[in-house]
């Protein structure tokens, strides 16, 4: 079986074959093969040993994140979203930086209350200019324009409660 695994903007091709026992696999990463001895630790953890590679060991956890379809990998206290076989996550899609082109939406990243709307339809905005202030978890969070352009539409008013993902402002 071959998987395309993407993280931090780079895709690696991983092929996996069963080796001598049920928890040993011959793993080939971008053409380089190694033996991996793997055991599950709990529902989300994987303990991997590399018997052919100085017997090194590593523990990685993989769990769904809170965004739809998001898979998060945890290693040594650090976190990174991973995409297996092109299942792109919402957050990763927003991170691609293609934001500068075309119509862009500013959406609520979490449920909260709109405290202030800082722009009106027709306003010209700079890239990263604050457009809406949403209060969530007792803090006011400024949501910024992803690009320089013109405000096409404002879909909320101050005081509104919004769900995660709700589009608040459209910039063109």
């Amino acid at each position, binding site marked *: 079986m071959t998987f395309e695994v993407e993280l931090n903007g*780079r895709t690696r091709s*991983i092929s996996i074959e069963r080796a001598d026992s049920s928890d040993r696999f011959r793993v080939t990463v971008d053409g380089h093969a190694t033996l*991996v001895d793997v055991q*599950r630790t709990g529902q989300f953890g994987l303990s991997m040993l590399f018997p052919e590679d100085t017997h090194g060991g590593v523990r990685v956890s993989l769990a769904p994140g809170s965004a739809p379809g998001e898979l998060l990998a945890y*290693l040594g206290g650090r976190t*990174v979203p991973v995409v*297996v*076989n092109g299942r792109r996550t919402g957050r990763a899609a927003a991170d691609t930086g293609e934001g500068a082109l075309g119509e862009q939406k500013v959406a609520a990243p979490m*449920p909260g209350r709109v*405290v202030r709307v800082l722009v009106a339809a027709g306003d010209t905005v700079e890239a990263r200019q604050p457009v809406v202030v949403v209060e969530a978890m007792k803090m006011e969070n400024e949501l910024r324009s992803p690009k320089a352009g013109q405000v096409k539409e404002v879909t909320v008013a101050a005081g509104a409660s919004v769900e995660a993902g709700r589009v608040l402002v459209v910039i063109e």
Partner: protein
Amino acid sequence: MKVLIANRGEIAVRVIRACRELGLSTVAVYSDCDRGARHVRDADQAIHLGPSPAVESYLRIDRLIDAAKATGADAVHPGYGFLAENAAFALACRDAGLTFIGPSPDAIKRMGSKTGAREIAIRAGVPVVPGTEAPLGANASDDEIRREGARVGFPLMVKAVAGGGGKGMRVVESPDALLNAVRTARSEAGSAFGDTAVYFERRILKPRHIEIQLLGDHYGTVIPFVERECSIQRRHQKVVEESPSMAVDAHLRRRIADAAAAVASAAAYTNAGTIEFLLDEDGSFYFLEMNTRLQVEHPVTEMVTSLDLVHWQIRIARGERLTIDPDRALTPQGHAIECRVYAEDPDQGFMPSPGLVRAIRPAAGPGIRDDGGVLPGYTVPVFYDSMIAKLIAWAGTRGEAIGRMTRALQEYEVLGIRTTIPFFLWLMREPDYLAGRFDTSYLDRLLAARRGQSFSTFDERDEVHIAIAAALDAVMRSRGASSGGAGSRGTRGSAWTAAARLDGLRG
């Protein structure tokens, strides 16, 4: 004695633990979204307060008093936040015949007003930061605001009279930014504290935030403790605290502690409280405010003194005399550091990251203390502060404590949401942090300079390991599914496993 804990999260768990240790039974309270919360499970009894928004649950004085009566509680511990510094709540407890584990309603009122507290400090002969004497209420005119600003001088700080935790606080560099800053500070203060009054304070340019923990009993004894260093702040909110401070020697410690004790005595203060100071580069210090409650960061004091502050809060409330040796309280044994673990994504500007905690593995081992508030399966709600745990490391020296903290952060796993753990791992390697060279604006400057780079950095080897793990995970889950094993248990995130399964089988 039965204690109702009028709070939630890690502090409710902390107080329940102290009660258990003293042989007291406990009553938890909870809102709709907190039915599954850890403090509800840990307490002997639990009472539902109301809907999730705090104003309809944890801030409802009437329901809390009813809950205490219904369960036969004799005492109330307010924790921190919510009603902890609300004089009306302390009074309502007293009127209902309940022992409030904290200061008197009068002391809360006196010290809770930041401008009132300044006056008391001045009377006690303790220096204060120059600023406005009377608060600027909701009716203050723009002219009045400009005039006061000019009198105090720029740069200045706009602060909420009822403030705390960095809310309702703004730095103003020049007169033209003043009115805007007052408006946003008022808006934040209004929603957080229900009081929009603000005041101004001159800004000390590179101050450290140093605070003194105190205990006072009902017989006039006030004991100040070794200082806490709380200068590591993001947007005026503390994120890392330690004790002792590298900037304070034994002589300065004694002077600050004496000043703190003088303020507390002048206010006839009882139970636990903390006096915050700004420490200037030249060694002069200024009274900032008093927090009339247990502080989030109290564990670092406990670790370097081997004293339990929550035990003492309860004992003082029961009428016991303080029998702590004052020298012991002022002499740190080793060094302690606390990291506040927030459900926030440091890689997205510390945006809140609420959601389902699928698994949690706290750090443990020598010198590590985990004051956690969350169990696996709990959904971190959007309604409250996003702190889910406090991780505390103790060791003989600061360097060793940082080593332990780093090790513990690497062990700590909170799966399903983002947390500030990767950010702390990064901070624990920063040269200026390691050298103790910082002031209250250090972290904001450092973060601004990074321009949003990820805190989770992986080398090539790490990335390959993660990629292999992701592929093996997909293979093993597809096997589990076909044999009715682990993969078919149907975790809520089964969409991606199903997808990976299909694609994997095709490949």
